[in-house]
């Protein structure tokens, strides 16, 4: 991969992984990676601190998965998927952006999903070398289409304030390699998310299943809440007829019908409405996340 090919792609990415860029002052590359001629020539515009911290974390293996993914793109390993996952996390964590239909999350594609196994630092080298051997190999199949992404995995902040470690000696050997991998995964990533959104837009079989399941679950939710309201309120007139004593029963100085219909009915309706709005929003969120990732 040439420098020309890679640089633009990295730069154009709105969510650069700072750690992936070679830091000019660092000279602790592992042999293989330091041999990469491009490593130090890429213009570096990311904050130093962030980069250092990340590098350090990667080297220490102290970061569970979000970070390690920058080091891995192994086609046959779950961690490879993490590349995508990491990028995605970083985006989410960093700042909320308006949705863009045309935006294709880099990795969404190649990932087996955020639930994948975190990479241990020892995997890094191996994974890396594999990538270079066969850049076309893709781990796509690993991700089950219908499985919603676990929430916890999605919200992991990648670049959220890096732990302030005092030592800056962290080994940076992985850096150059990382960068290449990012590029690779980015390219690989181009197709898959598009496909899911398009699936839904074009209502291919997959899209139709997805969208009808959304509609069904929304309808079930609405019917459930509406049923609660209807049964609770609708039972009242009948109850007052069947048990006339209820109509004369006093509570807090108010007759029961006045208390129920004049006062309590309103907070009851409000609570149902609030529950519905919250649950419906969550259903939509899961749907949208699912097809976008």
């Amino acid at each position, binding site marked *: 991969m040439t420098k020309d090919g890679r640089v633009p792609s990295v730069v154009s990415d709105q969510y650069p992984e700072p750690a992936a860029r070679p830091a000019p002052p660092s000279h602790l590359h592992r042999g293989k990676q330091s041999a990469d001629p491009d490593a130090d020539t890429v213009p570096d515009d990311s904050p130093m601190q962030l980069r250092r911290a990340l590098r350090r974390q990667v080297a220490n293996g102290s970061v569970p998965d979000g970070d390690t993914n920058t080091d891995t793109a192994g086609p046959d390993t779950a961690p490879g998927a993490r590349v995508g996952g990491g990028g995605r996390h970083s985006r989410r964590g960093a700042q909320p952006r308006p*949705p863009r239909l045309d935006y294709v999350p880099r990795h969404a594609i190649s990932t087996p999903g955020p639930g994948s196994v975190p990479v241990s630092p020892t995997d890094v080298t191996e994974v890396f070398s594999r990538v270079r051997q066969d850049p076309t190999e893709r781990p796509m199949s690993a991700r089950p289409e219908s499985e919603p992404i676990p929430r916890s995995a999605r919200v992991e902040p990648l670049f959220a304030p890096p732990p302030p470690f005092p030592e800056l000696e962290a080994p940076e050997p992985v850096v150059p390699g990382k960068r290449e991998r990012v590029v690779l995964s980015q390219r690989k990533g181009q197709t898959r998310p598009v496909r899911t959104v398009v699936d839904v837009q074009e209502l291919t079989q997959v899209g139709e299943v997805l969208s009808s399941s959304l*509609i069904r679950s*929304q309808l079930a939710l*609405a019917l459930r809440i509406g049923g609660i309201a209807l049964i609770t309120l609708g039972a009242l*007139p009948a109850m*007052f007829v069947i048990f006339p004593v209820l109509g004369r029963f006093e509570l807090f100085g108010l007759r029961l019908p006045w208390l129920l219909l004049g*006062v309590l*009915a309103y907070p009851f309706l*409000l609570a149902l*409405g609030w529950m519905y709005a919250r649950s419906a929003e969550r259903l939509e969120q899961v749907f949208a996340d699912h097809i976008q990732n």
Partner: protein
Amino acid sequence: MTPAAVVALSCIAIVAVASTVIGSFGVRFARNTSDFLVASRTVGPTANAGAISGEYLSAASFLGVAGLILKQGPDALWYPVGFTAGYLALLLFVSAPLRRSGAYTVPDFAEFRLRSPAVQRVCTVFVIIIGWMYLLPQLQGAGLTVATVVPSLPAWSGMVAAGVVVIATVVFGGMRSITFVQAFQFWLKLTALAVPAVVLLIFVGGNHQPFNRPAPPQFPADTTVSIKTDVLLRVTQPVVLQATGVVDGTATDGTVIWNAGLHSVLAGAKLGFTAGSSVPIPNGLPVRDSSWLTPLSGDSNYQLFAIYSLIVATFLGTMGLPHVLVRFYTNPDGRATRRTTVVVLAFLGAFYLLPTLLGALSRLYVPQLLVSGNTDAAVLLLPTAALGGGTLATLLAGLIAAGAWAAFLSTSSGLVVGVAGVLATSPSLFPRGGVRDFRVAAVIAGLVPLGLALVAARLDFSQTVSLAFAVAASTFCPLLVLGIWWSGLTDRGAVAGLLVGGITSGGAVSLSLFGLDPGGWIGLLLNRPALITVPLAFLTMTVVSKLTRKRLLPDVPRLLLRLHAPERLGLSQDRTHRLN
């Protein structure tokens, strides 16, 4: 003109002027047609919820609910509960998908979903019918308010004044300014009932007659009642009264003694009662205070059916009201629409506590309204009756009159916007559909019901309004619910369902609006048709759609997806381009 009348009239004038001024300020920000019609869809949830509630709380809520409680006791509580629960149904089944359809009106939605000009035309007709039916009691309420606070003014002057202010606000302000006006008017209405309620609780407190007496209410002071419509009164304890006019079939002028039993009084009579005598109650209503306190205590054998029918009409009718729907299009997206609706539920719940309280108090202080049948004036007369005149009572009465006026103005302008929006966006009437067409449509939408209000007879506001709810529930509710959630709806099915539901409910409703009441089951069905006509409309729509399955649009799944997919996927699209 008494000082009280001057105060009340000035309050009314201030509200009218303030509405117009806020409206004209708002219009400065309106830069294009989208601003004008849908406030560019940038109104936040709380402001929009204030506007929706302000628009929704009409004469029926502000005056009518308390009046019906005065008459019927807890059975009348189903009106405000239903008016509120309607928003829950709207939230559950309609709000977000309708917003995502990008349509501006129900006919627009029908066109989006079914691509059938026929359905669109039928919808347009029903929007106009429902809108005008709903406008009628608003304008009459304006007339009643003016005539109540200033007895020397005729009712028509109030109607005409309200009509002119409404049309002017809509024509010159458009939707954006209406949003401000409506939100302002919601808070005004809340204040106008909350302050008197608090003051009455402080001054009257527990220091009043008990509600739970096994006797009819008593006149708190010497009272003269003018009878405007023929009435049959039930007396349980002998009453001595001064009567002028035709009483019990004979022309009378002097002292009359009524024994227990039924007594008829013809319109035009004047009855004078002394303080402490029992109030004769119109036949069919709960007579004793103790039975008034308990539910389902009236004479009718069909009360349970009537209540369930009312529940169906109000729960499902709200989603079909033109002024409510239009307002939802001003939300930026489906999610904001849901949140707006939840806030509306809170606002309405808070508001309806007040007419409930005032309605119960009016049983003690203004029972003479039961005799005259003019119970809608209960809230307007309550402060003076309870506090016995004085500055405070005068100011409170003025405040309530202002609030009532705000109620008519806001609901009427919302309805005029809704009806005018439908007229102006219907291609057959206004091919260009620009701002000028909207203004012309607004004038038409306001003038016609004003003419009707001047000639039509008057029912209780809440009853007229619930008739409009019944028609909306029998037409637009099935169309919206099936259109949004069922992929099998066809254009033929929609038209058939709309016509069946609309003609049955509309026919029944117009018969009872013309005063036809044969009594028994028939009379009940004419007055409360929803329990029959709504299922009928749903059934027709479903069956005819199944029979005409061949006419299903090929891309129905995609349309449904657009209604339900969150905006961030970019599948929905606004449709105001037609208006630009």
